[in-house]
């Protein structure tokens, strides 16, 4: 209770009135406005618990430094040269690892009673998830900016210049947003945040390591090359690398956008279906 301790409950002392009579309902918020409100909610949580930024700060630093210096010498005989190849991939991997938390966060979130209230509001229903993902986009942006900044510090020279890097970032964020719908589906299908994290990590491990992030796939056995050829993350890395170095083709970018569209087309409706039938 508050420090004021009147004998009578303070609620009763106030004249009942307009507070309990605010029946006029403002116009229903637009889908965009509702989504932005949920994005605001996601950002408030970061503000109140800044420790959760630890992941998105530690992951880019550790990944960039460890992979460059540990693997650089062995794989490319020179860390400097390898960095030009590796950094776009590490930025990609960093952002994709950060997307994983979306699922476990959502899993813990929907268990809260407040989701009942959200569900009972007359709003555009996907706004809850779109808003959460927009909030997450801020975290992706921080993680990717950090990874690129570290790369530049240790000698990364993007041939595509600032415009190339920004376009690469944009493409990466679009892909991260699309991939997040896979995590939201898992987040609503699986029972606990722990199981969500485990499954997501396994999926992500396969997607990122069976790709061209660390090495040229031509060094891999044929069956693995075939796997890499159909891995959407490999297409993404090719395009991001191309954009940063100014060598990307339209076809490479189109492939990525196609993957994004496919991810959203499959997993957004699945997520919404699960969301609607949660706890029924």
């Amino acid at each position, binding site marked *: *209770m508050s420090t004021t301790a009147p004998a009578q*409950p*303070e*609620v009763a002392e106030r004249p*009942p009135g307009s507070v309990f009579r605010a029946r006029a309902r403002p116009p229903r918020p637009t889908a965009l406005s509702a989504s932005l409100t949920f994005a605001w909610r996601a950002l*408030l*949580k970061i503000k109140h618990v800044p420790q959760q930024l630890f992941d998105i700060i530690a992951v880019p630093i550790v990944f960039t430094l460890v992979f460059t210096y540990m693997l650089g010498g062995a794989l490319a005989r020179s860390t400097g040269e390898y960095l030009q190849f590796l950094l776009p991939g590490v930025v990609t991997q960093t952002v994709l690892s950060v997307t994983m938390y979306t699922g476990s966060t959502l899993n813990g979130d929907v268990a809260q009673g407040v989701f009942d*209230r959200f*569900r009972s509001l007359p709003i555009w229903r996907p706004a809850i998830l779109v808003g959460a993902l927009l909030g997450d986009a801020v975290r992706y942006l921080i993680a990717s900016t950090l990874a690129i900044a570290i790369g530049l510090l240790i000698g990364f020279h993007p041939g595509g210049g600032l415009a190339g890097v920004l376009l690469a970032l944009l493409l990466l964020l679009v892909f991260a947003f699309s991939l997040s719908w896979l995590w939201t589906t898992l987040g609503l299908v699986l029972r606990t945040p722990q199981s969500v994290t485990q499954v997501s990590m396994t999926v992500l491990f396969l997607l990122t390591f069976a790709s061209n992030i660390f090495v040229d796939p031509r060094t891999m056995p044929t069956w693995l090359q075939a796997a890499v050829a159909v891995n959407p993350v490999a297409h993404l890395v090719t395009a991001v690398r191309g954009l940063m170095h100014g060598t990307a083709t339209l076809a490479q970018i189109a492939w990525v956008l196609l993957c994004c569209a496919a991810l959203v087309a499959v997993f957004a409706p699945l997520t919404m279906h699960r969301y609607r039938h949660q706890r029924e």
Partner: protein
Amino acid sequence: MDSPSELAIEARGLVKVFGEARAVDGVDLAVRAGGVYGFLGPNGAGKTTTIRMLATLLPPDAGTARVLGHDIVRDADAVRGRVSLTGQYVSVDEQLTGSENLVMLARLLGHSWAGAKARAGELLDSFGLTEAAGRLVKTYSGGMRRRLDIAASIVVTPDLLFLDEPTTGLDPRSRNQVWDIVRALVAEGTTVLLTTQYLDEADQLADRVAVIDRGRVVAEGTPSELKASVGSGTLHVRLRDPQHRLKAERVLSQALGVPVHLESDPAALSARVSDPEPVARALARLSRSGVAVTHFTLGQPSLDEVFLTLTGRTAEDSTKDTT
């Protein structure tokens, strides 16, 4: 008041099945607009499931219901626009502050940022939460959470408010504050449907009560009708020596003219009495026959007694059966 259009809730044969269990098994309801309607029953009786269906959070498996004239399935959006639900478990965001919670909801209901802040401010003020407005909800006491929860439900004042066990687990002072809020809302024209496990609460607030057990309405009426059906009260007697219990049972049932129950406590007996008059005589006769009484009470019927009368089982047994 009696025309069907004045009914806030009209339900026929509502059914909800979870796996094998028929959580709600054919509930009929007619709740008039205005005032408080109580839903009385033990844990697992189907109270929460019923109001979640009425609030459009769960689709019914069978049956129909109209809330404020709108069908809960075909017209769910229209229902959502006019009702509000405060769930049994706190339905505010614990990781945000009290103020942020209300601003967020006001935004989601269509207020501008300025309008949302103004509405949040006046609600916090009326609910005695201004000082705590900037603190995270997870630091709130149970009573503060409840009040914030109800404030969150009336950001736009609903025509019908569902309160699911609003005072379970609250201390008496917080409970009184919640009751005052409910009375203030009703005074301003909101219809309130509340579920409770406490006969006392239904008695204090509700104009009419439905007793629900195993997914069915087993009785309906005003709290006084309900209590009258159980007798005016119950005499509880506790003996010094449990060995005397059978003797005491015989003496009491003769003096009172009603059956006497043997409680699970081996030294305790109880009897429902319609009239306090013979109680004094019965107790005197007990002491004359040499049975020492350590304690006796003559109280209002409890929920357990209402249940025993209406269903032949105690509320506790009922809980065990359905879970």
